[in-house]
């Protein structure tokens, strides 16, 4: 039985915090891009044209039925073979965007389908443009309705960012791997990291709830 000694880990806390910040930056960027991609794919899924629908469904099923780490390897190790070399960090963000986009688009599609036809007809009869109808009547209430599921999905995305340490991105887990290589205090390092991830999840959840109150104030009206 060894004894836990956190000294070597705590003295490198600045490194871990920089890793946590990169984790947060990568995840937030991926969330933003994933949200855009997901909206596009959700709209494609509801398209009139069978080919467009097929492309959207093929993308979603391909991503949802293969592991994230394999997708990451295809992008980082595989794409250079066809002349597309990406640095680890852009590869990571790209992979996370594709991964998060597939799950998020299913959520957004459910939200769009929940918007009633009458709302859209009301918008038309008020003379709103197609873009305005899409923006204010379809997508905003749709996202408002499925916001909680989206938050869970984004939390999963934050956690999956730890996987990008496998292509040497120096985010929290990557930094942890480095520190355990130097100090050999593997158990201590990963316990501290686990706690930091739990804190990041709590932070993200809190932040997203604040955004929800700002962006969708109508959800919080007391009737």
């Amino acid at each position, binding site marked *: *039985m*060894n004894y*836990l000694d956190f000294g070597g880990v705590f003295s490198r806390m600045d490194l871990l915090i920089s890793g946590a910040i990169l984790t947060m930056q990568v995840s937030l960027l991926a969330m933003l891009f994933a949200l855009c991609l997901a909206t596009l794919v959700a709209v494609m899924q509801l398209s009139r044209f069978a080919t467009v629908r097929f492309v959207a469904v093929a993308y979603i*099923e*391909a991503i*949802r*039925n*293969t*592991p*994230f*780490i*394999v*997708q990451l*390897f*295809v992008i980082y*190790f*595989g*794409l*250079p*073979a*066809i002349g597309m070399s990406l640095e680890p960090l852009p590869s990571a963000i790209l992979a996370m965007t594709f991964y998060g986009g597939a799950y998020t688009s299913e959520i957004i599609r459910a939200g769009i389908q929940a918007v009633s036809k009458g709302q859209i007809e009301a918008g038309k009869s008020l003379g709103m443009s197609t873009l305005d109808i899409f923006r204010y009547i379809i997508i905003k209430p749709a996202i408002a309705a499925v916001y909680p599921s989206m938050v869970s999905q984004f*939390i999963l995305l934050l*956690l*999956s*960012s*730890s*996987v990008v*340490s*496998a292509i040497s991105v120096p985010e929290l*887990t990557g930094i*942890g791997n480095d520190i*355990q290589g130097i100090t050999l205090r*593997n*158990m201590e390092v*990963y*316990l501290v*990291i*686990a706690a930091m*991830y*739990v804190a990041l*999840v*709590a932070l993200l959840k809190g932040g997203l709830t604040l955004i929800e109150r700002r962006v969708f104030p109508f959800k919080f009206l007391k009737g």
Partner: protein
Amino acid sequence: MMFQEFSLPHVYFMLQGLAWTIGLAVIALTGGSIAGSLLALMAVSRNRWVRRVAKLYIFVVQGTPLLVTLFIAYFGANYVGFEVPPLVAISIAFSFYAAAFLGEIWRGSIHSVPIGQSEGAHALGLSRFDAMRYIIIPQAVKIATPPTVGFFVMLIKNTSLASVVSITELTRTAQIVSNATFKPLQVYLLAALFYFLVCFPLTIVSRKLERRLHKS
């Protein structure tokens, strides 16, 4: 330096990896089911503290990246003083991970059985245990089946992370083959195809079961 041709023996090697992937997922599902059902029952307990322990466990495990959980299990066995082979440590870690998700899925299923059912059981004079066993659980199982199959798909995909701690499942074999042949694109796409061929049918089953549930 010479690279090997990417050929049939490599594919066989990866298929062996696939067998380990499925094996690991089945072990995790079995272990996770045992701990998960206990956790689900704890989460619907009448004792507030028992409920809190279950919820805390679920929160912590779901809030930690699986990769970090795997590292803790992989390195942690020594600290507890056991000489555990990596495969066993990783199987245990996956079971703990699966338990948190299954516990949460099953708690939700138990809760979504209409309250009238347990009131009815109570009115008929059934004990709480009998009500659980004969009235609530059989109905909850039906509700729980589609998301459980869905989670099994997630489990199969997530066993790929065991490659990071050198368990030779499908992703690890793909890494080895990729290094030997220097055909990363073909190799990783083939690995992705293998995963897809296993996961997609299960996804369809899960979806069909869910549709049938909504009809009834």
